[in-house]
């Protein structure tokens, strides 16, 4: 179980501020993409985020365009999960296809503060924040399979090889 620092933001965080449109037309390396994560929302994020950190936000996280870089840049930046009150549909899929964990847990969003240290137990469906424990419902089995394999394409490759 990995722990990390919380980066907390508001509602309706859209893909333009997660990964600016001006970079979407260049095919970038993972490190470069990580360097632009949340650039127009929190200029300090990309320089200070550590592996295992968690992004926490309100409802409709990732609304806006279909750009996959919005999920990919957070994963490449080392973010272990995004916890939100709700997710926009395309971001949610992109995150799972990229192997980035997404947790819908409104109680945790209300109960966790910015900069707090938290840990996530995915198999038990629990978020541990000091004395506080928040439960979240597991994703459907088939979606967990995708996440555990590292995303959609690795999942189907393993499936074709008979490893799953």
């Amino acid at each position: 179980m990995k722990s990390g620092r919380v980066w907390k933001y508001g509602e309706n965080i859209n893909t333009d501020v997660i990964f600016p449109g001006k970079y979407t037309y260049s095919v970038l390396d993972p490190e470069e993409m990580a360097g632009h994560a949340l650039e127009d929302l929190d200029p300090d994020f990309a320089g200070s985020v550590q592996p295992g950190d968690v992004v926490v936000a309100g409802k409709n996280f990732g609304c806006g365009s279909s750009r996959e870089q919005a999920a990919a840049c957070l994963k490449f930046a080392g973010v272990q999960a995004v916890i939100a009150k709700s997710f926009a549909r395309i971001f949610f899929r992109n995150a799972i296809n990229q192997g980035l964990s997404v947790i819908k847990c409104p109680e945790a969003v209300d109960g966790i503060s910015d900069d707090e240290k938290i840990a996530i137990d995915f198999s038990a469906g629990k978020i541990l924040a000091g004395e506080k424990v928040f439960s979240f419902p597991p994703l459907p089995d088939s979606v967990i399979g995708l996440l555990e394999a590292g995303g959609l394409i690795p999942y189907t490759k393993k499936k074709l090889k008979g490893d799953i």
Partner: protein
Amino acid sequence: MGQTVIEKILSRHSQNDVRPGQVIWLDLNVRSARDFGGPNVVKNFEREYGKDQVDDPSKTFFTFDLCVPACSIRYANNQQICRKFARKKGFQVFDVDQGIGSHVLIQEGLASAGTTVVGTDSHMNILGAVGSFGQGMGDVDITFAYKTGKTWFEVPETVKVLITGQMSKTASPKDLTLFILKQMGTRKGALRAIEFYGSAVKSLDLSGRITLCSMVTEMAGIIGFIPEYDKTFAEEVEELSGKAYSPLAADEDAEYSDVLTIDVSGLEPQIAAPFLPTNVHDVSELCGKKIDSGFIGSCTNGRASDFAEAARILGRYKVKEGVMLKIVPATRIVYDVLLREGILSELFKSGAIISNPGCGGCAEGHIGLTGEGEVQLSTGNRNFAGKQGKGETYLTSPAVVAASCLAGCITVPEHS
């Protein structure tokens, strides 16, 4: 037990009798990518699948619509990467001359009622306007769809929305759409399919249906359908696409997660102020706010009737000195209609800037970008901070954009 529209479509394409919450493997009639996302799809495909062929070249497409023709070397390179890939794999490109991909798929009869379509466009659910299941997806999803012809999908619940009452005569389909968005917010239809019923939506033509269905994305919904229709709408779709219009209807005993009623009686023109599409007001509340530019176009309001309405409001008048009015038809076919009917000429004489077909400024493409401090009225669908530049974008109808460009400030169009 009966099924909703989306449950019927997904059942037909997965050989399952699907129910909400199930995760299914869905067969796709159309797998597409744009100049946005397309180059990453090529990169992903070649990295993951090497020299493999796509699943079915006759069902695989690129549709270039964002920056058309390319306005930078970066875009030109990206589009060329896609063209070369399509030639190698033997599939069709709807190139930079054709216009907005989702509209092109409708006109080509590729996205017809009951079909399943994916593309790298978050407004691909616009296809609900013709009873097709369209869905915007990211690069990995599309790469996978190119290779396998399938995608995974969690069957959503459906919300039934009954629209009651008569709008005022000055209200357009965009006003109806913005008002419904205001009532629905980003929660009531979130991650669900929406079926709209009632005489105000039943009577909508293709253009009006496209406007409403496009902004289901802003409601955080999966897709919107308008199951009831007039004969004239069916004829319009059939004439455009060359295919019979036979949409799937919901069963009488279909199960809905929610049934909502929205009363539009007396509805007046609406406008969404920066920086959220749901920040909707009566236009009359914002009258007098000075504007710098107007944009008419986008996948939401880029049809011939949208420009005809703007031309009607502009009449023989010219836009106020210092105000830019930018016109971007959705497709080449729309452009042709506007040319033949003399509407482009009328708009031109009123001082409008006329662009070739495409998405315009929505995703930092061509026409419709704003500078710092610029106030723009747009018929588009998003006004997030920074989306079209550093200025402020207000979302409204073609009529309000036209009337406001004449006045130089936000104005309610006069009814004639």
